[in-house]
């Protein structure tokens, strides 16, 4: 885990350093960068100091050079990372990257060009300055001065050698005892510092010296190791300073077989000449040391200049990158903020702790986004409220039974509720023009009424009109009112109700009242009329004999017609009777079979079939009322069949029961079909109204009573000519449960 975290931390650290800022630690990058920069400059100054000082601290020159190179390298990596990051931002098209790039380029050019110019001039100046230290004239002069010094010194060496040779010549053939006098005399004569004569076995034979010490200075072992047959003269530096000429020369023996003696002479070179020669040698040596260090010095200077150039340029570029990042970051943030605003995200920007124009701009932007966010919230709340109100109104409009149509100011349909579609039995598309609605449809009377009202505006409208439907006339009552919508244009609203049921109920109630009054007013005198006719018949028929035939016919007619009137009055009574149902669960199929048993023995020539659905649930109903329904329907069908044309196939009645779905509830359907002539078309829509009948006989109340009983059970009844072979069909739906 640490291994994974390490590169991540390093990456963040490098990013912070290279970008100059991170979201978490905005000030870490600049701080580290500044520290590094300071270290680099200190290291560079240190290198320069040590280079120029060349003292004991110069041992730290190489480490400082490596550290300086390391810092330069690190700065270079930072700059490379930053440049790559900037190029990636530029490639992604990030806002502010172009401005940052321009800033970096400008700062780089502004820093690089002067630095390069200064570097170039310094390079040239240093090269020429170092080269100017050296010249052929100086070298020639130093060579000649050294040669002069050499000549002076050699002259002393040669003169010392000549003197030594003269002394050696004088000592040839002298005995050891005489040699002492000769050495002393000749040393004084030639003004030598020290003269010593050695035997072949290195024994001192004679010595003379300016030095008062008793022991003479002995020649160095290296001199003694030289070739004894040739003289040697060397110049050596003395420990106390100065130069000393040392000559070692053989003193030849005149006697054959006798070994040679050795003469050793020392002669210091005069101090004035020695100092001059030493000065020339020092100058010559230093000049040649400088010549030796000529190229290395150039290299050192060039390295220092290169490090200075790199430090200056890299620091400037890095500062430029950091500056560009700092300058463009608020702009990029602003751009991101505007893009967020364009997307509808009103998020305030992170504030900048500055009071410059950018800080004021971000502050203003944040104020704007807050106001926009507030306005958006208010608009959303208002929209939500309006939507809730619309949904509420829609729900209310959908739930109310009245049909509602709204039209805009240009008479285009704006809103239609479900009840309107149900009542008008037509799907009215929203946006339809009023003029386009009433072309050839059943609703034409409605649209004409509305158009007339719109063309001749009044404050309000209330009309009742009938719409002809295939199943009969539909009565609706229409209310109209004008209003002004939000845009100020005027529109209107139509509210209408289907009052067909209400009208039918009113008519039924009226007929019930008529029937009740008829029954009441007619039934009471019928019994006295019948009794009076029977009394007349009983009292005067036998008395009149044959002349009583007229009386017999008249009273019989009266009695029969009174019976017929009673039947009719009973029917009226039945129709007007108030419902008193005894609801119990019953099996409809069993009831049908019971009723059919009554008709099986009759020779009416009508075949009655039953198609009864299996497994029907029990129906909660009044058994006597249902039996009356079945009897009325069967009697009507048989009457219709017996009055019709005889067909080759015979006459048929079909009773059918089944369980059907009518919306969410189960419905028990009872159908009675026949293959008779069917209902007359002009009566089809009113067959359930009292006194509407196509039969010659009959009260015209049978189907009216049937509908009344069905409605008392909560059911529905329809009549059409979709029976057997186009005959009549009555369908009754009883709701279950």
């Amino acid at each position, binding site marked *: 885990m640490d291994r994974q975290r390490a590169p991540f931390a390093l990456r963040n650290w490098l990013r912070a350093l290279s970008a100059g800022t991170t979201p978490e630690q905005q000030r870490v990058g600049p701080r580290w960068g500044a520290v590094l920069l300071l270290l680099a400059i200190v290291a560079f100054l240190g290198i320069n100091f040590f280079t120029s000082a060349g003292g004991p601290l110069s041992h730290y020159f190489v480490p400082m050079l490596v550290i300086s190179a390391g810092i330069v390298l690190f700065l*270079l990596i930072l700059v490379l990372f930053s440049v790559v990051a900037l190029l990636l931002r530029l490639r992604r098209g990030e806002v502010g990257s172009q401005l940052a790039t321009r800033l970096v380029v400008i700062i780089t050019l502004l820093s690089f060009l002067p630095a390069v110019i200064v570097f170039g001039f310094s390079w040239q100046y240093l090269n020429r300055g170092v080269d100017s230290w050296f010249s052929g004239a100086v070298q020639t002069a130093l060579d000649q001065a050294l040669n002069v010094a050499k000549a002076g010194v050699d002259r002393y060496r040669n003169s010392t050698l000549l003197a030594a040779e003269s002394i050696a010549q004088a000592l040839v053939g002298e005995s050891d005892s005489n040699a002492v006098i000769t050495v002393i005399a000749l040393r004084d004569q030639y003004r030598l510092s020290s003269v010593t004569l050695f035997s072949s076995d290195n024994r001192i034979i004679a010595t003379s010296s300016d030095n008062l010490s008793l022991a003479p200075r002995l020649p160095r072992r290296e001199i003694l190791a030289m070739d004894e047959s040739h003289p040697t003269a060397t110049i050596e530096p003395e420990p106390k300073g100065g130069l000393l000429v040392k000559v070692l020369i053989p003193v030849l023996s005149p006697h054959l077989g006798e070994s040679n003696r050795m003469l050793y002479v020392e002669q210091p070179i005069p101090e004035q000449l020695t100092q001059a020669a030493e000065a020339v040698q020092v100058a010559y040596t230093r000049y040649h*040391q400088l010549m030796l*260090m000529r190229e290395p010095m150039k290299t050192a200077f060039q390295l220092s200049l290169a490090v200075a150039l790199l430090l200056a340029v890299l620091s400037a570029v890095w500062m430029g990158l950091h500056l560009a990042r700092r300058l463009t970051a608020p702009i990029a943030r602003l751009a991101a903020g505007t893009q967020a605003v364009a997307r509808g995200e009103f998020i305030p920007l992170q504030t900048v702790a500055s009071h410059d124009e950018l800080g004021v701009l971000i502050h203003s932007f944040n104020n704007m986004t807050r106001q926009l966010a507030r306005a958006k919230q208010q608009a959303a709340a208002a929209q939500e409220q309006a939507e809730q109100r619309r949904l509420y109104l829609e729900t209310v409009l959908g739930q109310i039974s009245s049909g509602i149509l709204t039209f805009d100011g240009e008479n285009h349909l704006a809103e239609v509720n479900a009840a309107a579609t149900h009542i008008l039995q037509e799907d009215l598309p929203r946006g339809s023009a009023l003029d386009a609605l009433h072309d050839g449809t059943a609703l034409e009377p409605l649209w004409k009424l509305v158009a007339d009202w719109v063309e001749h505006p009044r404050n309000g409208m209330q009309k009742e009109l009938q719409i002809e439907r295939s199943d009969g006339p539909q009565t609706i009552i229409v209310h109209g009112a004008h209003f002004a919508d939000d845009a100020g244009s005027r529109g209107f609203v139509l509210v209408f109700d289907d009052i067909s049921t209400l009208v039918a109920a009113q008519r039924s109630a009226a007929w019930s009242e008529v029937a009740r009054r008829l029954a009441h007013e007619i039934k009471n005198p019928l019994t006295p009329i019948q009794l009076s006719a029977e009394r007349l018949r009983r009292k005067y028929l036998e008395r009149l004999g044959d002349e009583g035939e007229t009386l017999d016919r008249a009273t019989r007619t009266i009695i029969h017609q009174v019976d017929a009137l009673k039947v009719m009055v009973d029917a009226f009574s039945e129709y007007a009777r108030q419902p008193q149902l005894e609801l119990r669960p019953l099996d409809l199929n069993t009831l049908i079979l019971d009723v059919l048993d009554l008709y099986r023995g009759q020779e009416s020539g009508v075949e009655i079939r039953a198609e009864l659905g299996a497994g029907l649930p029990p129906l909660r109903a009044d058994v006597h009322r249902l039996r009356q329904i079945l009897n009325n329907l069967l009697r009507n069908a048989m009457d219709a069949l017996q009055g019709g044309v005889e067909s080759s196939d015979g006459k048929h009645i079909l009773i059918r029961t089944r369980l059907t779905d009518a919306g969410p509830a189960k419905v028990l359907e009872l159908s009675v079909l026949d293959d008779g002539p069917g209902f007359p078309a002009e009566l089809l829509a009113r067959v359930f109204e009292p006194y509407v009948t196509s039969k010659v006989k009959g009260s015209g109340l049978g189907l009216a009573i049937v509908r009344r009983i069905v409605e008392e059970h909560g059911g529905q009844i329809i009549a059409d000519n979709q029976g057997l072979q186009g005959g009549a069909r009555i369908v009754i739906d009883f709701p279950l449960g």
Partner: protein
Amino acid sequence: MSQDGALRLPISRNWQQQLVVILVGLYCFWGLAGIAVADPAFHVEHLQVTPCGDAIKINASVQLGKEALLQQILDQGQTLVWVVEAEWREPEPFSFIPGVGVHAHGEERWRIHYYPLTNQYAIEDQHGALTLYAHWSAVATALAQVHDFMLPLVHGAARGQVALRVYIDVQALPLPLRLRSLLGHWKLESPWIVSAPLSH
């Protein structure tokens, strides 16, 4: 004349880290490439070690390379410091690390001058004793011998090895010349040469 030396061992390292390391490595490689590729100027040969009480007497010969360079530097008036360095190394864990297992160390330094006035070379020992040479060949002959270098043994294991190297002390050079040496133009040193194991 006696001589000795020091062993140099190699050392050794995701993407940013690797990149940084590679770049630093390349930079260092570039900066120090001269040192890494330059051949040593000197080689110690015929190493002979003789235990002498609490010391070891060391004799060896040195094959001098870049003699012309040395003579050129000297003739240009630059004093060189010739160092002979010896170590007594005993077998220990991690003795491949420089300094580990070294129980005795000794070195001797000689300053080499050139006197243009008298065309003489001089070798000066640590006590200030000067030896003059009229010719460079004599100097080269003197430098090519490590003679009776005494390496005192303070303590140590019964068995060990003597390591010897010679070199020109770069730190004693002026800074520009030291920089040239650092950049690899010169590598005036010999590798360590190690004797056979011996007891004392």
